[in-house]
């Protein structure tokens, strides 16, 4: 039965992917990509990967649609090719190349152990330690959180820095004077009475839900990445309804930029404190006299750093893009 559901969802995934390739309207593509996100999350749920499903729920189906749409408002809605169809456009070489590469990759998988077999390296290498010892070493129920924030703390640090860099990149490319200029508001959505009141009711709850996700990553699905995205979504909802100026009055742009750096700093500082106490970088055992308490404290702080950085970078990207497209709208 379960495999039947898997097959149906994979079929729908493939159908959606083909539809995405065939449709020329980029807006329709965004919609279908949103559906793709929803489907992948259902699939991850079925595969019991609830942390991944959670991330996909917040990122794939939620904020990425919003960010792509703001991008579309700058770039236009249709692919260039559909405006001027080129008669002699025959991507045969590319097709051959892709087919050959794909075939080689599939051939390559022949040497890999079967999916889910007990003697596969992935099951015998570090997984037994994570599964058997994380409860005593780290002392939190969600093994994924232990791996992400503690055992693999370096990798996660790298990911946070990548997100921070993305924020800096967007600022460097798009900002120019856009963020400094006073944004001239066009029509506001806040005169839409039903939307305004329902959103006003929801925004505090969404923010609190984000914080709940932030602090319960040790017990269930969730953690800094998801929490940051959900928190940013609440802010984006506010900015969409009441305008960029109002949103900037709540937190000004400088503060958000400062916070995005502060998150990375918090993460790094936890590592440095561990070093000062005589351990390795990011070895939380040295944060406290009791190693397990140290792990708890370390994971809590590190996840907080992740959450702060992710939330502020998402807000930066949305604010900058919107400011830019509104400025262009004026120029028209």
């Amino acid at each position, binding site marked *: 039965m379960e495999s039947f559901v898997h097959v149906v969802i994979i079929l729908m995934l493939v159908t959606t992917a083909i539809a995405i390739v065939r449709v020329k309207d980029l807006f329709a593509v965004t919609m279908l990509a949103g559906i793709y996100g929803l489907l992948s999350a259902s699939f991850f749920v079925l595969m019991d990967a609830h942390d991944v499903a959670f991330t996909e729920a917040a990122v794939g189906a939620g904020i990425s649609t919003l960010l792509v749409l703001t991008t579309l408002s700058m770039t236009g809605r249709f692919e260039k090719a559909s405006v001027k169809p080129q008669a002699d456009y025959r991507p045969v070489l590319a097709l051959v190349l892709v087919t050959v590469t794909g075939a080689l990759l599939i051939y390559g998988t022949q040497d890999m152990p079967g999916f889910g077999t007990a003697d596969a390296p992935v099951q015998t290498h570090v997984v037994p330690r994570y599964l058997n010892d994380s409860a005593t070493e780290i002392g939190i129920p969600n093994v994924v959180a232990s791996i992400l924030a503690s055992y693999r703390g370096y990798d996660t640090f790298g990911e946070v820095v990548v997100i921070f860099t993305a924020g800096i990149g967007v600022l460097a490319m798009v900002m120019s004077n856009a963020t400094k200029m006073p944004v001239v508001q066009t029509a506001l959505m806040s005169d839409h009475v039903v*939307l305004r009141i329902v959103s006003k009711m929801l925004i505090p709850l969404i923010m609190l839900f984000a914080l709940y996700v932030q602090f319960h990553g040790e017990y269930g699905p969730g953690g800094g990445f998801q929490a940051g995205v959900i928190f940013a979504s609440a802010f984006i909802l506010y900015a969409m309804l009441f305008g960029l100026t109002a949103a900037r009055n709540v937190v000004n742009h400088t503060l958000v930029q400062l916070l995005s750096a502060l998150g990375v700093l918090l993460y790094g500082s936890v590592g440095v404190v561990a070093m000062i106490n005589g351990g390795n970088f990011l070895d939380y055992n040295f944060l406290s006299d009791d190693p397990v308490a140290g792990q708890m404290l370390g994971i809590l702080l590190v996840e907080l750093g992740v959450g702060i950085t992710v939330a502020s970078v998402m807000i930066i990207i949305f604010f900058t893009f919107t400011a830019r497209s509104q400025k262009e709208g004026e120029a028209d």
Partner: protein
Amino acid sequence: MFTAVTIAVLVAMALALFRAYAGPTLYDRILAVNVFGTKTVLLIAIVGFLMGRPEFLDIAMVYALMNFITVIGILRFFEYSSPGKSANSETVKD
């Protein structure tokens, strides 16, 4: 019995998927995405029960909230940043 309901939701999802692809207007697509989102909330809640893992409800809750924000975002994109005349145009003709 959960199985039967899961299948029902999957069928409904497939039909909504078709509407998202077929359009014809953009609003049909937005509607289809919205319906699809509600179905996903249901599917995740049911599957969580099916597998005896009710903590999946947190994921369903995120969907219920994000779905709303996404729809508002799409509408904002249309109502306020581009002229809506194109809304009636049949865009999938290939």
